[in-house]
């Protein structure tokens, strides 16, 4: 066969074989990857809304997903809010859990962040940051306590603590949470949180 035909044949064959291999690999790994993702969300929901037996997504937008967490009798025991926003260095993804009336936050967990290691990255640390996010009252909106305090007792119930040397990352996390809370509240008022059950 002449050169031109050969070029086309070779490229097509290479392409086909590649496509076939990739389809096989794609199928084999697809389930596992999806499973990993689910597991991550599930674990996070379980952490921020303790006692969750099952959950369903009520609202799914690009940077915000609200999950309804349900207990033993399939009753609503809280919401788990998954939110994405800009941090100091890159994007921060987090999840926080609230009670069904959106009166308080149970706790917060950071899913993805690329903040400065050793400083901003401490937002994932329980001791340095996350413990101060437990049982916060959110009716009046949360505020950041600066300069940082040493113990939880020193914080007002609607305050969260800064990380010394990482004020901006701490503030960014707060901004993401406050912003999402606003959206969740308005969604609730519009009755959009009823979703699937």
């Amino acid at each position, binding site marked *: 066969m002449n050169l031109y035909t050969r070029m086309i044949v070779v490229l097509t064959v290479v392409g086909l074989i*590649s*496509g076939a291999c*990739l*389809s096989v*690999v*794609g199928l084999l*790994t*697809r389930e596992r990857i999806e499973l990993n993702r689910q597991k991550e969300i599930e674990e996070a929901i379980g952490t921020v809304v303790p006692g969750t037996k099952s959950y369903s997504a009520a609202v799914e937008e*690009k940077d915000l997903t609200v999950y309804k967490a349900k207990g033993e009798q399939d009753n609503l025991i809280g919401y788990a809010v998954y939110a994405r926003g*800009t941090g*100091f*260095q*890159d*994007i921060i993804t987090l999840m926080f859990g609230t009670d069904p009336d959106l009166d308080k936050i149970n706790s917060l967990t950071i899913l993805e962040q690329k903040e*400065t290691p050793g400083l901003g990255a401490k937002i994932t640390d329980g001791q340095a940051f996350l413990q101060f996010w437990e049982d916060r009252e959110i009716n009046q909106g949360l505020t950041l306590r600066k300069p940082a305090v040493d113990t939880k007792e020193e914080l007002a119930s609607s305050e969260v603590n800064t990380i010394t040397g990482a004020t*901006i990352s701490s503030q960014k996390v707060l901004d993401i949470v406050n912003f999402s809370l606003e959206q969740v509240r308005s969604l609730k008022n519009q009755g959009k949180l009823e979703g699937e059950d």
Partner: protein
Amino acid sequence: MELLTILILSILVNNFVLYYFLGICPFLGVSKKLDSAVSMGLAVTFVMTITAVVSWLINHLILIPNDLGYLQIVSFILVIASLVQLVEMFIRKISPPLYQALGIYLPLITTNCAIMGLALLAALKNYNFITTVVFGFGSGIGFTLAIVLMAGIREQLELADVPEPLKGAGIALIVAGIMALAFTGFSGMIQ
């Protein structure tokens, strides 16, 4: 996220070269003279913006609707290779003077990790169409900024007394490191 935010993010805070480490080969290779640096930067910005558009289209019109996510790498690289080829031919025909200025750098851009990196990052960040285009354009400008700054410094370095082993790539990297340090100061700019 506002477009202006994305623009500033991609040019300064998440600078393609100094934060994402993409495009190092041309960054080191073409930054010796100021005018070639500018040309390379412009060529890259041009290709990046087009790539942003095309990769978004492929991802959202073909791959995602048909659950073909795993074909992303192969389709992106093939598209980029053909795109660069087409762009080169197009520029040659439409504007010979532009080709004179940019042309030789275009083939170098195919294996430039910056372009593939842009396509992958844009897909990862999952922006909408307009935002993706702004991201592509901004990243290109950021690359141009970094490479032009580097060229300016290197032209001065030619006259300095650099120790023998560090000449060339060694000192270039150290300079890049200092630049990266300076750019770190831009973090947290975005409200």
